[in-house]
């Protein structure tokens, strides 16, 4: 009966109840969305690289090294000598090493020069290896393996020819178009920056830079494939490299020895540590967003409460009547709490449904356009807790009108 009374009384005040419900729905939507995306991006983010024990590059800030080696953001300050790479990886604690060479691009997507070990050892997420959607890894000089998004967005398929550009600007005029690459493999989507990368061999990178000095084409010798194979294409420098160690325990020891490497200033970072450092910087923004959405929610709670508070004056006769037929004053308290709770529950239901519908319909677009994967299932433990706190908070805020109803009931 209490529930029926609460529901009917809300229905009786459709106009104001609807507006309160709308405000509650919007605020629940925003709060859930921010919290969901926060956790999703954090997951995605910390999933960009896994199983790599150390990343080594020219001495620079930790985050800078992480940004250009893993996220392909920004550019390296300096390269490191091939000799350094060989010296460091000769350490017997090093199980595997992936050299990477950055600096070229194709239509805005970065080109990564590496070795076949990349496909063997690089992993992301919960130690997932890279998998081929089509084709295989590069083995010829001018073979290229495309990330899922590159192939998808640019419409490439196996066998297509791709000309790389020097530098990383989208509209670079200095094209390496005299030596095009052939697509031999397309990777399955990973939801990481790998999807936005073109992978070629280190030798391929060397080959297209013959005749180039300091970023400018200085000669135009017509070299054929067989000519090139005769040239020594051993790279003289690379951008960075990733290391897998034979024992996790050795990580700090190896890191120290690299950081003390005398003949060239290099630095080794632990990807997990650098990721969380980077996350902390981004986290400030996220926390601000969360704070704003909490404030929006509190405003909605206050809206519901003020609507109920205003209704108490109109309901003077109803309250008196309830008292006459024997209802104790706390019944009024419960009634008004229940009305607030009904609005909140309905708002949670609508907000969550709306969010799931939005995510489900935007999912394809986000993956295609930005390579961001956000799960549409928001029914996680986190959002469960969040919904619970939403309900608790609304109950607490509704104490104000409920108490007023209780007092009115006692007076009558």
């Amino acid at each position: 009966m209490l529930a029926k009374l609460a529901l009917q009384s809300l229905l009786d005040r459709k106009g104001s109840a609807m507006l309160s419900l709308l405000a509650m729905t919007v605020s629940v939507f925003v709060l859930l969305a921010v919290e969901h995306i926060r956790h999703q991006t954090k997951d995605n983010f910390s999933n960009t690289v896994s199983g790599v024990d150390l990343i080594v590059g020219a001495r620079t800030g930790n985050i800078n090294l992480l940004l250009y080696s893993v996220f392909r953001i920004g550019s390296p300050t300096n390269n490191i000598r091939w000799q350094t790479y060989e010296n460091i990886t000769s350490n017997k604690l090093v199980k595997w090493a992936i050299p990477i060479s950055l600096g070229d691009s194709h239509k805005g997507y970065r080109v990564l020069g590496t070795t076949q070990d990349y496909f063997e050892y690089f992993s992301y997420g919960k130690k997932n290896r890279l998998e081929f959607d089509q084709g295989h890894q590069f083995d010829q000089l001018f073979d290229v393996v495309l990330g899922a998004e590159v192939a998808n967005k640019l419409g490439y398929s196996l066998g297509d020819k791709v000309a790389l550009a020097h530098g990383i600007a989208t509209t670079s005029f200095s094209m390496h178009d005299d030596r095009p690459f052939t697509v031999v493999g397309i990777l399955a989507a990973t939801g990481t920056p790998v999807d936005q990368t073109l992978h070629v061999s280190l030798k391929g990178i060397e080959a297209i830079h013959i005749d180039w000095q300091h970023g400018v084409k200085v000669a135009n010798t017509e070299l054929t494939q067989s000519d090139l194979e005769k040239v020594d294409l051993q790279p003289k420098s690379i951008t960075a490299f990733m290391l897998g160690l034979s024992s996790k325990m050795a990580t700090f020891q190896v890191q120290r020895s690299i950081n003390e490497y005398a003949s060239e200033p290099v630095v080794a970072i632990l990807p997990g540590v650098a990721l969380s450092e980077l996350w902390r910087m981004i986290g400030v923004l996220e926390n601000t967003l969360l704070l704003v959405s909490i404030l929006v929610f509190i405003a909605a709670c206050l809206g519901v409460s003020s609507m109920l508070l205003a209704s108490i004056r109109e309901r003077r006769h109803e309250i008196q009547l309830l008292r006459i037929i024997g209802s104790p004053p706390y019944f009024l308290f419960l009634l008004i709490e229940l009305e607030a709770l009904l609005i909140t529950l309905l708002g949670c239901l609508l907000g969550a449904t709306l969010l799931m519908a939005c995510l489900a319909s935007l999912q394809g677009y986000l993956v295609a356009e930005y390579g961001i994967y956000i799960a549409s299932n928001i029914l996680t433990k986190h959002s469960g807790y969040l919904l619970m706190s939403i309900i608790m908070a609304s109950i607490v805020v509704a104490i104000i009108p409920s108490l007023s109803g209780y007092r009115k009931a006692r007076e009558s």
Partner: protein
Amino acid sequence: MAIELADIRFHYPSRAEHTVLNVPSWSLKTGTQAFVYGPSGGGKSTLLGLLSGLLSPNSGQVRVLGQCLDTLSNRQRDQFRAANIGYVFQQFNLMPYLNAIDNVLLATQFSQSNNRGGKENEVKVLFNALNIPENEWQIPCRDLSVGQQQRVAIARALINKPKLLIADEPTSSLDQANSDAFMKLLMPMAADNNMTLLFVSHDHSLSSYFTSVESLGDFNQVEGINNAS
């Protein structure tokens, strides 16, 4: 005795200088159908407030159905009221957004007996006895005519089979014909259920329906107020 008042003095807390009731002694025998009249502002509704336990006298004793109200806790008083006293007022008898059946059932919510299935049948029996057409049972009470609303109010007051029925000018918002119809339904119902009926009004013309007729001024001795009607 259904009602016994002794040495009652009452003023509203907001107006301490204005004594509304001063009743040295007054009682009502069980089973009487009593009519108490008095002018507007004479304190009739206040008296009924004391009997229901919603108001407490500043001094003196209120006994209803043998129960001394000031020895009860607030909670017990609410339960006592729910179980033993039925009310009909001039207006605002019903929750406007609930239908007739739910309005009557709401009154069963707070009394001890809480057998819903059986109660719903009793409501229907009452509605039939009170000439409330079946097609009006399910619509919000605000959409009923005033006469129908007052009849639903009788059903509401009777559903818990109270021993005391209190009516506070229930007919003053009705026209003559409706008012007569109302009285002709109410009186036998109270008699059939062996209820004590206390009916207050400023309208002396209704007194013909009652066995006992009293003026409030006869037992309420407040000085300075016009005690005759």
